[in-house]
């Protein structure tokens, strides 16, 4: 029973980080129908920037995060404005290749600068743990849950409570019509990339804080957010959040209870297996919108 409770709480904590990364995918998709395969690399860049600033330059941790957010968000907006928009104006499908290229390029640059060895993040939590009853979590993970909830709430407020949410969906749906009703399509798109940058850095921080560390493989951990996104429904922010939590819990449960005949690392595969099962039942994800069809 305690093992189960521990697994659920750990899963929730990891899942809340996945949820942030998945939300980053979702917001760009909703603003421009682009699936940003570079989101994982942006997570990686964010984590390395924070670690580099905090450890190599003695910048206070919070300031390092703020600076990294500024760099990654600005970089995302510039990438969209100077490259992606021009190259996808004719064909949205080419965005797959272009964002993959950014992902590979960014990972290569990071490896050139920092090598492949593990780094510490430079967070103030260290190896502290918080215990309640029989359940214990690293302090960083507790913070991760709290910050994720705050960030997600801020996003929902922005999406539902302001004209931005409607503008974002309108821009993605029909650019010409959105312009005609006065939606500043390009500014909306830039804002979605900036938000994706913010989410990538915060996600990166909590994916690499103790007990994890900053390594190039973090971008593949960030890819776990992908089944979360698909499972929740590509165009649904709440789906991305729900999907993230589900994937986190599935992964930890699979890691805890995997039978030996499945071999090691079944927990890496489990999210995708769950995604496939859910898509068989609900092809547009848990909370995705089914396109209306006229019969």
């Amino acid at each position, binding site marked *: 029973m305690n093992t189960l409770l521990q697994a659920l709480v750990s899963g929730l904590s990891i899942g809340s980080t996945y949820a942030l990364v998945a939300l980053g995918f979702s917001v760009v998709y909703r603003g421009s129908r682009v699936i940003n395969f570079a989101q994982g690399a942006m997570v990686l860049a964010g984590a390395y920037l924070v670690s580099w600033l905090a450890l190599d330059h003695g910048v206070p941790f919070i300031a390092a995060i703020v600076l990294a957010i500024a760099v990654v968000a600005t970089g995302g907006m510039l990438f969209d404005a100077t490259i992606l928009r021009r190259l996808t104006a004719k064909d949205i499908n080419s965005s797959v290749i272009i964002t993959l290229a950014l992902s590979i390029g960014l990972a290569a640059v990071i490896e050139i600068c920092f090598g492949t060895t593990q780094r510490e993040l430079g967070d103030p939590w260290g190896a502290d743990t918080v215990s309640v009853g029989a359940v214990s979590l690293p302090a960083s993970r507790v913070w991760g849950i709290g910050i994720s909830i705050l960030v997600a709430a801020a996003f929902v*407020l*922005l999406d539902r*409570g*302001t*004209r*931005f949410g*409607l*503008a974002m*969906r*309108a821009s993605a*749906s*029909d650019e*010409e*019509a*959105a*312009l*005609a*009703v*006065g*939606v*500043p*399509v390009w500014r909306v798109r830039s804002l979605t990339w900036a938000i994706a940058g913010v989410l990538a850095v915060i996600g990166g921080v909590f994916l690499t804080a103790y007990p994890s560390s900053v390594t190039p493989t973090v971008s593949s951990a960030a890819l776990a957010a992908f089944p979360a996104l698909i499972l929740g429904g590509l*165009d649904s922010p709440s789906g991305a959040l729900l999907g993230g939590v589900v994937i986190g819990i599935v992964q930890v449960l699979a890691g805890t209870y995997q039978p030996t005949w499945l071999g090691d690392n079944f927990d890496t595969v489990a999210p995708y297996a769950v995604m496939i099962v859910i898509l068989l039942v609900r092809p547009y994800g848990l909370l995705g*919108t089914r*396109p*209306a*069809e*006229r019969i």
Partner: protein
Amino acid sequence: MSATFEAENLSLAFGKVVPFEGVSFSVDAGEIFAIIGPNGAGKTSLFNTLSRVYQPQTGTLRLEGRDLLRSRPRDLAALGVARTFQNLSLFAHMSVLENVLVGRHHLMRSGPLAAGAWFGRTRREEREHGFKAQEALELLRIADLADTPVSALPYGQQKRVELARAITMEPSVLLLDEPVAGVASQERAAMAQVIRDVHRSSGVTILLVEHDMNMVMSAADRVMVLDFGKVIALGTPPEIQADPAVVNAYLGKAAS
């Protein structure tokens, strides 16, 4: 009445192809002004110029004295120009009400920061915009469809949604690109009636480009006829129907 939407000496050329040239007209405030012409007369090119999709080579275009040729398409909404599209441009993944609400976007004050600080005001604003959108739906007689996904509606109803979206923008001039194109002939009279209703209740100036002669003659205050890119007649519907140049353009010269 004072002129509100004025075009002077507008000409458009794509290389050697000249869709229209030397087009001048002025639409009075509160008027329904129609532009008609046979196929290939340049109607659609002219409409796309008026709606700032094409940049004309010569001429001026003013709304209430302001130069529209200097503004970008996305600024038109704020300047008071709303438009519909010949082949519809709706937001397919949204409900009818949401589609219309987007039309209020440029009137919404609450930006991301204001929303956090003044959540009360945001709520009030949201209610007001929702109310206005609902009003537009009632005017177009589609209020019962508010929550229906827009892509599930038949074409004629979608045209009404688009018109509702344009009207809820509270424009000073409404540009309609072939409002009955593709609409079944039985529904055309109803659409013409809806346009007149919109006009009567809001007093908005309407400029429409249309192919359907009956619709134009029953709805418009004044009609401008375009043939081979030139204005050949301008007047009230009875004047136009009696104009020999118009009869020639549509029916060909009578054999003598």
